[in-house]
C-alpha cells in the first residue's frame, strides 16, 4: 500500500506535470530545430511566435464562445487553432519576406540572421502586447479534469490523490499526433523529402531542381504551426501571459541543444529531459521517501534546489551539454 502511495504521489507531483511540460517544450524545440536545420540559424523569435499564435487563437476562441460554439468537454481553443496557425503563418512569412530573405540572398553569416531574429523577437513582442495586452488570460473551458483527486481517493482508498487535468492529457495526445504527422510528412511526402535534402546539402538539392523558396516557405509554415500548437497547449495548461512566453525561450533552446540542434528526434527527447530535470530537481522528495522508507525521518524536505531556481536547471543542462557533447545527445549539428 505504501509503495502504491509513493507511486501515486510521484505520478501526481512529478510525472504528470513534467510529461505535459515536456510535451510543450518538445513541440517548441521541434520548431526551433526545424528552422536551424533548414534555414541554418537559431530563431530567437520563436517564443514570441508562440505568444503571437496563442494570442490570435485566444481572440478567435472568444469569438467562438460569444457565438455559443463549444466543443463540449474539450477546450474551444482547439477549434480556433487552425485560424491561429493561419494568422501566425502569415506573420512569419511576412517577416521572412521583409527581413530574413534579404540576408539569405546575400548569403549572410548565421550570426547575422540570429541577430536579425532578436530584432524580430522584440517586434513580435510588441505586436502581441498591442493585440491582446500584457495581462494574464485564462481561456481553458470545458471539463477541467479527466480524473480529480477526490474521485481518485474514493475509488482506490489510497491516502494520496491523483489528478489528471484535461489540458494535460490533451497536451500529450496532441503532441504525439503532431510529432507523428511531422515525421510522416518529412519521411514520406515529396515536399518533406525536398526539405530534408535541402537541409542535408543545399547545393546538391538545388542541382536536383528543388525550389529553395518553396522549401523555405514550407519550413516557416510548419514552424508557425508547431509554435502555435505549443503555445496554445502551454497557455491552456497554465495561463497565457506574453512575458511567460519570452521566458520559456530558454528551456526550449536548452531542449533543442540537448537533443542536438537540427535533429527532430533529439528535440523531442531534449524537451522531456529538460522538463523532467526541472521538476525532479526542484521537487521535495520527502513525501515519497516517507512512504518508501517508513522508519526514516530526514530533517529537510529532500529538495535539491528551491523552486525559485527552476530556470537555473535549464542553464546548467545547457552548459554541461555544450561542454561535453556540443552536438547534443542525438548528434545534431554542432552549435
Amino acid at each position, binding site marked *: 500500500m505504501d509503495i502504491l502511495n509513493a507511486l501515486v504521489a510521484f505520478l501526481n507531483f512529478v510525472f504528470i506535470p513534467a510529461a505535459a511540460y515536456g510535451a510543450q517544450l518538445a513541440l517548441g524545440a521541434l520548431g526551433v530545430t526545424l528552422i536551424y536545420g533548414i534555414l541554418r540559424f537559431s530563431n530567437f523569435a520563436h517564443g514570441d511566435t508562440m505568444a503571437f499564435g496563442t494570442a490570435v487563437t485566444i481572440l478567435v476562441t472568444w469569438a467562438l464562445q460569444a457565438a455559443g460554439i463549444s466543443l463540449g468537454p474539450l477546450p474551444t481553443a482547439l477549434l480556433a487553432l487552425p485560424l491561429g496557425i493561419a494568422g501566425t503563418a502569415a506573420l512569419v512569412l511576412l517577416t521572412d519576406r521583409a527581413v530574413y530573405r534579404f540576408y539569405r540572398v546575400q548569403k549572410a553569416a548565421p550570426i547575422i540572421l540570429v541577430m536579425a531574429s532578436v530584432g524580430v523577437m522584440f517586434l513580435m513582442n510588441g505586436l502581441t502586447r498591442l493585440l491582446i495586452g500584457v495581462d494574464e488570460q485564462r481561456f481553458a473551458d470545458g471539463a*477541467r479534469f479527466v480524473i480529480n*483527486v477526490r474521485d481518485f481517493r474514493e475509488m482506490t482508498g489510497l491516502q494520496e*490523490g491523483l489528478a489528471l487535468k484535461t489540458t494535460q492529457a490533451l497536451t500529450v495526445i496532441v503532441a504525439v499526433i503532431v510529432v507523428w504527422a511531422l515525421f510522416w510528412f518529412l519521411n514520406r511526402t515529396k515536399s518533406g523529402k525536398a526539405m530534408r535534402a535541402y537541409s542535408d546539402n543545399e547545393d546538391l538539392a538545388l542541382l536536383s531542381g528543388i525550389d529553395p523558396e518553396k522549401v523555405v516557405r514550407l519550413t516557416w509554415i510548419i514552424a508557425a504551426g508547431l509554435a502555435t500548437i505549443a503555445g496554445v497547449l502551454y497557455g491552456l495548461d*497554465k*495561463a497565457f501571459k506574453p512575458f511567460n512566453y519570452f521566458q520559456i525561450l530558454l528551456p526550449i533552446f536548452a531542449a533543442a541543444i540537448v537533443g542536438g540542434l537540427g535533429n527532430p528526434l533529439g528535440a523531442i527527447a531534449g524537451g522531456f529531459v529538460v522538463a523532467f530535470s526541472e521538476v525532479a530537481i526542484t521537487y*521535495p522528495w520527502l513525501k515519497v521517501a516517507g512512504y518508501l522508507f517508513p522508519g526514516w525521518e530526514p530533517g529537510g524536505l529532500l529538495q535539491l534546489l528551491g523552486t525559485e531556481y527552476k530556470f537555473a536547471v535549464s542553464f546548467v543542462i545547457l552548459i554541461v551539454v555544450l561542454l561535453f557533447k556540443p552536438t547534443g545527445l542525438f548528434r545534431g549539428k554542432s552549435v
Partner: protein
Amino acid sequence: MKKLLLATAAGALIAGAAGAEDIKMGISLGFTGPLESMAPAMRDGAKLAMKEVSDSGLLLDGSTVTAVEGDSTCADAAAATATVERLITAEGVKGIVGGMCSGETIASLENVAKPNGVVMISPSATSPALSTIEDNGLFFRTSPSDARQGQVMADIIMEKGINSVAVSYTNNDYGKGLADSFQAAFEEKGGTVTVNSAHDDGKADYSAEVAALAAAGGDALVVAGYVDQGGSGIVRAALDTGAFDTFVFPDGMVGTALVENFGTEISGSFGQNPAAEGEGRDTYLKLAEEAGYDGSGAFSAEAYDGAALMLLAMAAAGSSDPGTYKDKIMDVANEPGEKIMPGELAKALEIINGGGDVDYVGATSVELVGAGESAGVYREVSFNDAGEMEVVGYR
C-alpha cells in the same frame, strides 16, 4: 498693457477671498498590479471623504479639496516613488492617501514624502516594519500592523482545531512580514508551521511551489499573497493536485475576486481582513451605495478614514501645511471629543471651527495607537458550501 492690468486685477480679486484655497490631496494606489481589483473602491472611499468636506464649505474658510490620482503599481517601488514625486513636486498636494502595499509605501515615504515633509496616510500597508520606521511624524495608517493580524489569524486557526499548517507568502515586505509574525504567534500557541516558503508573483505555473508545500504537509495552507497574482495561482495549483482542501486567507486574499475564481472549490476555507463592525461601518456602506460604489471592498473604508483624518487635522491646525497639521492627526483620531461617524464630517468641522474637540470614529472605528496606526479590528470570514463569503464575526 491692458492685459497685464486685467491679470493683476484678477489676481487681486482671488487673493482677496479671505484665505480660502484649493487644497490638492494625492491618492497614490496600485491601480495596476497585484491588487488592482481593490484599488477603485479605495479611491472612491478617499474621494467620498474629500467631496464631503469640500461640499460643506467649512474647511479653512471655505477651501475646496481636489483629488489627484497616481498609480503606485503596488509592486514596483521605483514607479511608486516617481508617482509620489509627481504628486508632491508637480501637483503640490498637501497630503497623500497611500501607498497601497508595504514595500512601495516604505520606498516612497523615505525617498519623497519625508524629505518634502508631506503627510502620508496609508489605508492598506500593513507590514510590521512600518511601525518602527523613522517617519518624522509624517506617516500614519488606518489599517493595523500585520503583527496583530498574525496573532488574530493564529487564534482563528487554533479555534478551528487545526494545529499544523503550511505557509506560502508572496516574496515581498508584506508577505514576509505577515508570514513571520504569524509563524511566531502560531508557534507560541503550540501550533506547528511545517514550512514557511515564498512564491513569486506573475508566474505561469505554481505546481512546483505547491509540490514543496504538499511534501511538508499540514492540515491547512495559509496563503499570504495577492488575490490578483500568485496567491490565486497557488490556490489553483493546490486544488488541482489535491494538495490542500482548506485554506486560510489573510487580507491580501479576501476579496470578491477570490469567490469569482474559486466558488465552491474553497468551501470550508476561512480568513480575516481588517474591517470594523458597528454603526460606523453600516453608515459608510450606505453612503458608498448612494455614491455608486461598493463600500465593502477591502480597505475602502480605511481609505475614507485616511482622507477624513487628514482634512479634519487641517481644520484643527488651522492650516493645510503638512508640517503643522501632522501633529493634530492623533488628536482628532482619538479621545477626548465628540464622536464622529462617516457622513458627519461637516458636523466635525463645525465643532472644530467652534473650538471644540472631536474623536473621529469613522467607518473603521479609528483608534490610532503607537506610532500612528490602527489598533486593529478584524473581520473573520468563511466560505460556505454555496461558495459564498460570509462574515462570521469580529475580533
